[in-house]
C-alpha cells in the first residue's frame, strides 16, 4: 500500500515513478505540474467555500444571529449558491476605466496568492517546493499582491477606489515591516529559512513555547501586523464600507470581484499557515520533550489534520478579532505600526538574538 496518511513521500514518489516509466522526463514534468495545479485549484475552491461559510457563521454567532440557514442544512450550501450567482453576473466596466489594467488587477492578486501556496507544507512529503529560502520566498511573493490592489483602484477611475487603493498601499507597505521582523525573530532561533528545516527544529516543542517571552511577543505582533496586511477587520480601512463604499473593488462585479474576495481568504489561509509553521510547528503534532507517552498519543493524529487544525484555529482567532474590534482610523493605524509595533519588534529581535546566543531556549 503506497498511500500512508502519516507520510506522503511514498505516494508522491509512486506517482513520479509511474509517470516517468511511460513518459519522457519533460512530459512527466508537465503532467506533474498539471496535477499540482489541479490540486491547488481544488484546494482554493474548497477553501473559498468553507472559509466564506465559516466567516458568516462566526459573525452570526458573535452578533447573536442565525447566519445563513435557508440553503441546505444549516445553510451549508449558501456559498455554492453565492458563487453561482457571481458567475452569472454581468461583468460591468466603467467607460473611462483603463480596461487593460482593470482586467489585469484581480489576476495579479490571485497569482500572488497561488504562488505563495506552493511553498506551504501540508504534511510530511506533501510539499510542492521546499526552497532553500522558503520563508523569504513567501514574504517576497505575497508582497506582489498589493500591486494588483493599487492597479485595480487606480484603473477603476473612481475616487473611492483610488482612496482605498492608496490607503491599502500605505497600510500593506508599513505592516510588511512588522511581519518580516516577527518572522525574522523566529529565524534567529531556527538558523534556517528552509521551511522543512524550520519544522524539523520543532520536533521537541513548538517555538511558541520554546522561545520564551520574545517568541510570544513575536507571535502577537505577527498576528496583528499580518491581519493588517490582509486588509482585514479591524484594519479594513481600504475597503471601509461606510466611508468608501467598498474601496479598491468598488467598480468590480461578477467574477473579477470574486477573485479579489477569494484572494483575501486565501491570503488569510497563507498567513495562518506561515504562523503555524513558524510558531506552532507546522504539521508536527503537539510534542513536549522527546519520546514520552504523551507524544505517542499525539502522533496518532495524522500531520495533515494537525496542519489544517492549527490553520483553522488561527483563522477563527482572526475572525473573532474582526467581529469584536471596531475599525481603526488611518492615523491610529499608522501610529500603531510606526510608534509601537516597529520599535517593540526591533527590541524583541535584540532580545531574541541574545537568548539564541546564550542558548537559553530548549
Amino acid at each position: 500500500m503506497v498511500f500512508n496518511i502519516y507520510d506522503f513521500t511514498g505516494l508522491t514518489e509512486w506517482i513520479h515513478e509511474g509517470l516517468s516509466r511511460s513518459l519522457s522526463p519533460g512530459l512527466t514534468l508537465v503532467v506533474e505540474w498539471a496535477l499540482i495545479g489541479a490540486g491547488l485549484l481544488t484546494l482554493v475552491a474548497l477553501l473559498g467555500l468553507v472559509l466564506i461559510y465559516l466567516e458568516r457563521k462566526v459573525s452570526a454567532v458573535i452578533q447573536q444571529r442565525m447566519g445563513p440557514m435557508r440553503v441546505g442544512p444549516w445553510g451549508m450550501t449558501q456559498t455554492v449558491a453565492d458563487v453561482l450567482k457571481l458567475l452569472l453576473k454581468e461583468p460591468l466596466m466603467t467607460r473611462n476605466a483603463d480596461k487593460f489594467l482593470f482586467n489585469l488587477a484581480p489576476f495579479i492578486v490571485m497569482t500572488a496568492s497561488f504562488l505563495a501556496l506552493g511553498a506551504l507544507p501540508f504534511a510530511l512529503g506533501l510539499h510542492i517546493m521546499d526552497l532553500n529560502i522558503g520563508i523569504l520566498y513567501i514574504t517576497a511573493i505575497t508582497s506582489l499582491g498589493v500591486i494588483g490592489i493599487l492597479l485595480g483602484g487606480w484603473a477603476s477611475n473612481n475616487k473611492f477606489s483610488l482612496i482605498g487603493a492608496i490607503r491599502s498601499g500605505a497600510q500593506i507597505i508599513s505592516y510588511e515591516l512588522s511581519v518580516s521582523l516577527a518572522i525574522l525573530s523566529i529565524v534567529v532561533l531556527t538558523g534556517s529559512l528552509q521551511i522543512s528545516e524550520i519544522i524539523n527544529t520543532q520536533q521537541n516543542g513548538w517555538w511558541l513555547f520554546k522561545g520564551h517571552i520574545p517568541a510570544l511577543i513575536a507571535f502577537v505582533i505577527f498576528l496583528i501586523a499580518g491581519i493588517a496586511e490582509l486588509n482585514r477587520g479591524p484594519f479594513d480601512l481600504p475597503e471601509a464600507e461606510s466611508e468608501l463604499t467598498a474601496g479598491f473593488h468598488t467598480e468590480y462585479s461578477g467574477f473579477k470581484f470574486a477573485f479579489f474576495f477569494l484572494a483575501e481568504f486565501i491570503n488569510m489561509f497563507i498567513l495562518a499557515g506561515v504562523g503555524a509553521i513558524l510558531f506552532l510547528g507546522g504539521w508536527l503534532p503537539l510534542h513536549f520533550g522527546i519520546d514520552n507517552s504523551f507524544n505517542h498519543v499525539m502522533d496518532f493524529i495524522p500531520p495533515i489534520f494537525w496542519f489544517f487544525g492549527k490553520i483553522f484555529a488561527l483563522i477563527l482567532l482572526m475572525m473573532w478579532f474582526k467581529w469584536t474590534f471596531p475599525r481603526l482610523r488611518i492615523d491610529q493605524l499608522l501610529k500603531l505600526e510606526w510608534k509601537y509595533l516597529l520599535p517593540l519588534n526591533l527590541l524583541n529581535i535584540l532580545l531574541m538574538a541574545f537568548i539564541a546566543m546564550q542558548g537559553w531556549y530548549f
Partner: protein
Amino acid sequence: MEQIITYILLALMLIFSVMTVTSGRILRSAVYLLTVLVATAAIYFIMQYQFLAAVQITLYAGGIVVLIIFSILLTHHIEHRMENPVFWKAMISALAALGAVAMIAWVLKDAQSIQNVAGFIPPKMEDIGMALLSYGKQGYVLPFEVISVLLLAAMIGAIAVAKPALLQFKNKNFKQDDQ
C-alpha cells in the same frame, strides 16, 4: 524543458522592456517594467539562485515598483498621456541603449555559464549570510555597513522632509494636533 521556459522568459523580457519605454500611459509602463523584473527573478530561480531571485522580487517588484506605482497614483490622472519624444532625442536614447548592449555583449563574449563548470552547487543561504557579515577575505561586512549608514541617512532625510511642521511652527500659541 528549462531551456524552453528560459527562452520564453527572455523573449517576454525583451518585448516588455521595449513596451516599457514606448507606452504612452505611465502606469502601464510601470506594469510592463514589473513584468520584466519578475521574469528576471524567474530566470534566477531557474538558475538555482534562489536567494537572489527572492531579493529581486522583494526589492524590485515588491518594493521599487510599488513605490513607482504609488507615486503615479498620487500625481497622474487616468486620462493623462505622455507625449511622444522628439525624433532626435529618441534616436540618441536608442543609440545609448545599443551602446550598452554592445558593451555587455563585449564583456560577456568569452564568459562561461557557471552551470557548465564541473561541481557547481547552488549557493546555500548560510554561506550567503556568513559572507555578508564576514570581515576576512571575500567578506562583505564593509559594503554592508556602508549601505546601512546610507539607509539611515535616507530615513532621517525622509523624516526631516515629512515634518516641516516642526520647523515652521515654533510659535507657542500654535497647538499641534496630537499626531
